[in-house]
């Protein structure tokens, strides 16, 4: 009975939708499918991503849309569940027939989504910083990658604090591959990894880890722990007076731990980032002002929210240059090497070979009162690693993710 009712409901919805669709006379809206976690364990960092996307869509729609078409933003909340990510990807692609797909927080969710998008001709924007290496024609990466984050941070940390490093990492592809990057870069610098600990997601108690670190006596710690539960490490380490310098590619600018924990839990943390809310330039301040006007309760505009906002402007630029929404036409624009937009950090461009984005990188440090200072400005860094190892999407679509230990076959 209820199955019958469901079918009936689905059928009548379909009829209504078709009526609605035929009723539209003007240009159909351009559909953006957005998947961001705004409930569950990652909600606190996913919320700014949704807000950034909404802000960009509102601004673009007010100024005439893209190629004269208004944008319709279809947001679904996968709640941090990879199975739901796959279900929603299929729904957005097959039922809603979106023109572009954006979103995903963890690397696990991205890798869950990618094979499904790969069977289509839909462009997919991944808007987080990540462990790098994805060589895939469907995917455009807006966030920073290891050659922008680790190749800058780790030499600086080694020079300033010493060569012995302890790694606290989340136990999934992001943490494992980031740890591999650390081993590689550290080896070239003559440093040593005195300990490496992979923590299952959801673990919140770190007394043993803190003691293991004290036993190993490192000069500094690489903290690439992920999620709200694992962030408890900082409070517990501070309470036990661990007092070691820390480096990371995801803290402060992404998880805004310096706003969520009472000082001095994040004291002596160092991060390389293309965006953090404390950037003080006229462009950045104008961007922050627009954001806070629409979302006055936002605790922090994190880098993934920032990237999510700019991803939609990047898409707008690509579509307007290509005068088309087809992936192949958009990629022709990318292939010219002139796919650039003026972001709040400065100009950012998509690299044709890897479809990753160049970024202006800065190294920031957290003080005892959780004040932020910029210690070094690296200028614009290209995402060079993938093209160096032989990924060239203008010639061949590898659909693979490479790591220092998994390189393309020559």
């Amino acid at each position, binding site marked *: 009975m209820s199955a019958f009712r469901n079918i009936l409901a689905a059928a009548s919805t379909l009829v209504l939708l078709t009526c609605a669709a035929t009723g539209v006379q003007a240009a159909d809206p351009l559909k953006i499918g957005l998947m961001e976690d*705004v409930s569950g364990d990652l*909600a606190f960092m*996913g919320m700014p991503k949704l807000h950034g996307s909404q802000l960009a869509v509102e601004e673009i729609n007010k100024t005439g849309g893209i190629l004269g078409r208004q944008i319709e933003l279809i947001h679904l909340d996968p709640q941090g569940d990879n199975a739901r990510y796959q279900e929603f990807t299929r729904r957005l692609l097959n039922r809603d027939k979106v023109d572009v797909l954006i979103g995903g927080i963890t690397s696990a969710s991205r890798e869950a989504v990618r094979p499904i998008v790969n069977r289509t001709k839909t462009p997919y924007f991944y808007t987080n910083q990540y462990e790098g290496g994805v060589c895939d024609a469907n995917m455009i990466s807006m966030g920073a990658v290891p050659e922008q984050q680790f190749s800058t941070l780790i030499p600086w940390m080694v020079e300033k604090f010493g060569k012995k490093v302890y790694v606290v990492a989340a136990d999934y592809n992001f943490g494992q591959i980031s740890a591999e990057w650390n081993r590689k870069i550290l080896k070239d610098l003559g440093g040593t990894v005195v300990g490496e*600990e992979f923590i299952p997601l*959801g*673990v919140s108690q770190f007394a043993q880890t803190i003691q293991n670190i004290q036993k190993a006596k490192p000069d500094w710690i690489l903290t690439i722990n992920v999620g709200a*539960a694992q962030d408890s490490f900082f409070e517990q380490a501070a309470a036990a*007076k661990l007092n070691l310098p820390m480096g990371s590619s995801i803290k402060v600018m992404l998880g805004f731990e310096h706003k969520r924990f009472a000082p001095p839990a994040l004291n002596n943390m160092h991060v390389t980032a293309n965006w953090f809310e404390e950037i003080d330039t006229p462009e950045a301040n104008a961007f922050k002002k627009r954001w806070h006007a629409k979302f006055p309760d936002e605790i922090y505009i994190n880098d993934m929210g920032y990237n999510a906002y700019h991803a939609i402007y990047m898409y707008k630029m690509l579509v307007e240059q290509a005068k088309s929404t087809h992936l192949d036409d958009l990629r022709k624009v990318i292939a010219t090497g002139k796919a650039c937009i003026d972001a709040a950090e400065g100009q950012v461009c998509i690299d044709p070979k890897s479809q990753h984005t160049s970024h202006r990188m800065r190294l920031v440090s957290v003080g005892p009162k959780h004040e932020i200072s910029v210690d070094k400005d690296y200028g614009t860094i290209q995402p060079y690693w993938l093209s160096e190892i032989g990924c060239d999407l203008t010639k061949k679509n590898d659909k693979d993710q490479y790591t220092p230990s998994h390189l393309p076959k020559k």
Partner: protein
Amino acid sequence: MLPELFSLFYQFADVFAFLILASAGLAIVFGMMGVINMAHGEFIMCGAYVTVGLVNLGVPLPLAQIAAAFTAGLIGVVIEILVVRKFYKRPLDSLLATWGLSLIVTQGMLIVVGSSIRGIGTPEGSFAVGDYTFSTYRIILFACALAVLVGIYILFMRTRFGVIARATMQNAGMAQALGARTGRIYAISFGIGAGLAGLCGALYAPTMTLIPTMGATFIVESFVTVVVGGANVLLGTAPAAMLLALVRMALNASYGQIIGQIGMLFAVIAIIRILPEGLSSILARRGR
């Protein structure tokens, strides 16, 4: 040598305290009343949020923690009267009802309070033994876990309320015939369970990230402790926590957190396979 020994004790105490505080409330509600309270984690979250809210209003931390435990307990009494009471003879339905409650509460908190609130920082400083430094507050947590066990013992074994409560749990009809107000006993017992969950949240609030789903990080540990322990809180939960803490501490120390967690769950499977009624089944028999 001494620092290493102390470190072993500290790690054991830390895991033990976590297991006891996380599971005490669940053990009373599940072990004694037979209700599987899927909203246990939300009572923990309630305790943590009330604590932080009160501290931000200027209330001293220990007072805020006590008030938070009482708040969670009162909410527990109300929930028992409004929801749980209807499901005593239907364990599967009670599971579903409390799970639904848990979803409503986490999502409601997300909408009303937001996706995260700022922590308050761990009090009490630290001390050093040899090369190691330890957080003093974690020792306080251990003391609180012991105090909770003693408190449960006194309440259920040494008071008039305890006798009536145990009689009600064993045979509600007979207890009622003898004049016990069983409805009130159930409500108070559920309230005590919820209050202990709230106390857990209150005690861990200064040391953790505060988000609406924070209760979930306690849930696995609390359920396995209660399942391994069996129906008796005192003869089950405490030895179960001790055993699981030993397994986890030893594996954590030598092989890291992943093996520690896997090993603990393997121990749980083994114990349930051998003792389906939990540890308390043999301990209670010995005691007779």
